[in-house]
């Protein structure tokens, strides 16, 4: 008994010293990719001994902390606008890590499979279509016995990247939405009620017959929540899945990877998808990072877009397409320390 105790304390002491001796990278930002990041960072620590401390405080907080250089990298579900980029003391780069999606979840008696078009979706979320047995929903779902229930819209009450991707999509498909509401992490909803977090929205949908709301794909898949088949730009009704989300990113991509994937032109792509990025300074020599740490940070990013990708699917995130990986490689290679690239160019 006593011997065991000594053993345990020696081992834990050893672990602690090892913990403090090793390099620790600090990151903060988006909550949406947090399950994936924590898996990746855990595996990375076990393989390379580099500890990554990631705080999922929200994209906004992550970006602000990066600006103040209190973290080594930030993570965000929305890319920085030109205006926001100007506020940074030094230029930054966006490295895409995975593709996420937002699904439309609902609660109807018997949970039938539901198909919706963008225009019907907009009118539901604007409060124009008020009942489930509305003619326009019926036309799209002739085989479904739609009840005369009132539609209760549920949105995210907390500022979130999920809301950003969803409203970004609605802006692209409806001028009226763009003019009246716009896109953002928090917007002025015209109808419905707000719930906190994916879990809050799904809990509310689950217990309210007639409710409709938007949640992350990963969350919906893990919890077996039924979702809508949405008509995409190419005119196909697409079921959100890891595959159709991955396909959404299979389009021409810009070199800086700051692109919104919503309403994708990809034929089989799910239309409410979006990259999530890790944001770092292009020149890591900014006063707060040693060369050793900068090198480890770049190595970590390189690992995340290559070997790390295999953890995406298990956690219901979509891996990067080949095109996206190529672009991301170029971005990582462009990261420098005192003017010299950290990774060897080939």
């Amino acid at each position: 008994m006593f011997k065991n105790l000594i053993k345990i304390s020696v081992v834990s002491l050893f672990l602690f010293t090892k913990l403090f001796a090793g390099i620790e990278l600090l990151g903060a930002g988006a909550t949406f990719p947090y399950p994936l990041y924590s898996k990746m960072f855990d595996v990375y620590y076990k393989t390379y001994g580099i500890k990554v401390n990631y705080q999922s405080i929200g994209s906004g907080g992550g970006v602000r902390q990066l600006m103040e250089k209190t973290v080594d990298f930030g993570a965000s579900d929305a890319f920085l606008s030109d205006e926001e980029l100007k506020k940074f003391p030094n230029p930054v780069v966006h490295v895409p890590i995975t593709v996420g999606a937002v699904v439309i979840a609902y609660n109807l008696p018997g949970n039938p499979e539901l198909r919706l078009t963008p225009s019907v979706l907009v009118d539901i979320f604007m409060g124009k279509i008020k009942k489930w047995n509305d003619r326009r929903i019926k036309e799209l779902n002739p085989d479904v016995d739609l009840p005369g229930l009132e539609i209760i819209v549920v949105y995210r009450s907390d500022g979130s990247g999920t809301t950003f991707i969803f409203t970004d999509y609605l802006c692209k498909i409806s001028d009226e939405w763009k003019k009246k509401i716009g896109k953002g992490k928090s917007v002025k909803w015209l109808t419905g009620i707000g719930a906190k977090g994916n879990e809050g929205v799904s809990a509310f949908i689950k217990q309210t017959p007639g409710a409709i709301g938007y949640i992350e794909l990963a969350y919906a898949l893990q919890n077996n929540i039924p979702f809508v088949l949405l008509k995409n730009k190419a005119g196909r009704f697409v079921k959100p899945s890891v595959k159709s989300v991955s396909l959404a990113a299979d389009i021409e991509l810009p070199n800086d990877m700051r692109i919104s994937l919503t309403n994708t032109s990809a034929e089989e792509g799910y239309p409410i998808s979006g990259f999530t990025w890790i944001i770092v300074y292009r020149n890591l020599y900014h006063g707060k990072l040693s060369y050793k740490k900068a090198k480890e940070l770049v190595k970590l990013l390189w690992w995340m877009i290559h070997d790390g990708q295999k953890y995406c699917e298990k956690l219901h995130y979509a891996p990067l397409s080949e095109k996206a990986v190529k672009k991301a490689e170029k971005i990582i290679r462009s990261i420098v320390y005192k003017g010299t690239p950290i990774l060897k160019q080939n």
Partner: protein
Amino acid sequence: MKKDKLFFSVLWITGFLFVFLFILIFFSLLKESFLSIKSFGISFLTSSEWDPVAEKFGMLPFLVGTLFTSFLSLLISLPFSMAIALFLGEYFKTGSISKILSYATDLLAGIPSVIYGFWGIYLLVPIIRKLEMKIGVPPYGVGILTASLVLSVMIIPYASSIAREIIKLVPQDLVEAGYSLGSTRYEVIKKIIIPYSFSGIFAGILLSFGRAFGETMAVTMVIGNYNFLPKSIFSPGNTMASVIANEFTEATKDIHLSSLIHIGLWLFVITFFINYLGNLVIKKYKVK
């Protein structure tokens, strides 16, 4: 003598430190909300438009929601907390029943608010929804009434435990004098105990009101987070504390952040004034 002086100065410093901290909090809130004060001025209080995309901010719906839920919850909780206080302070001062009951009510104060939120979502919301279906209003389940009910349970221990202790302090000779004049128990409570302990009971009520006013997590989970003026007690709404908690982490625009802190400033000021007014009442009714 020397030790006495040292003790005195320690008391002085700690006391002063808290006054200083109070002022510091006020000024840092003022400083951070300056941008919003400059752009909206007094219209921040009177406008009911909250639109982070168009960068228009007004907190009237949140102010109304906060006052609505805290007063309603106070109203609901008052009969219960007073009954508990009288039961424990007058009828059963000792004994196992009293121990169990007082322990249980005090325990209510120790439950984390997120637990109350869950309880609200999974138990109360479906019940309210059924009620709403019966009377024919939109069956949201969440809203002002649900939030007030959750709050009222949360604040019962604050009012009841203080009132209980104060009622126990009513001098026994006064009570016995009442009985000897032939009063019934009800008359003693009404004419002697309540008037004697009024200021203390009021202080307890004030404390529970303050708790309802600033409660964040549990309210956010059951109020519906609807950023417009509530139309009835069944309508969803929002409170000042819950909008701050909801939007603070992802507020990237400076004016959005500043407006949220501006709400915090008002929350601070209003709480201060309610407490000040409450203290005036306590002073006025204090038995000399």
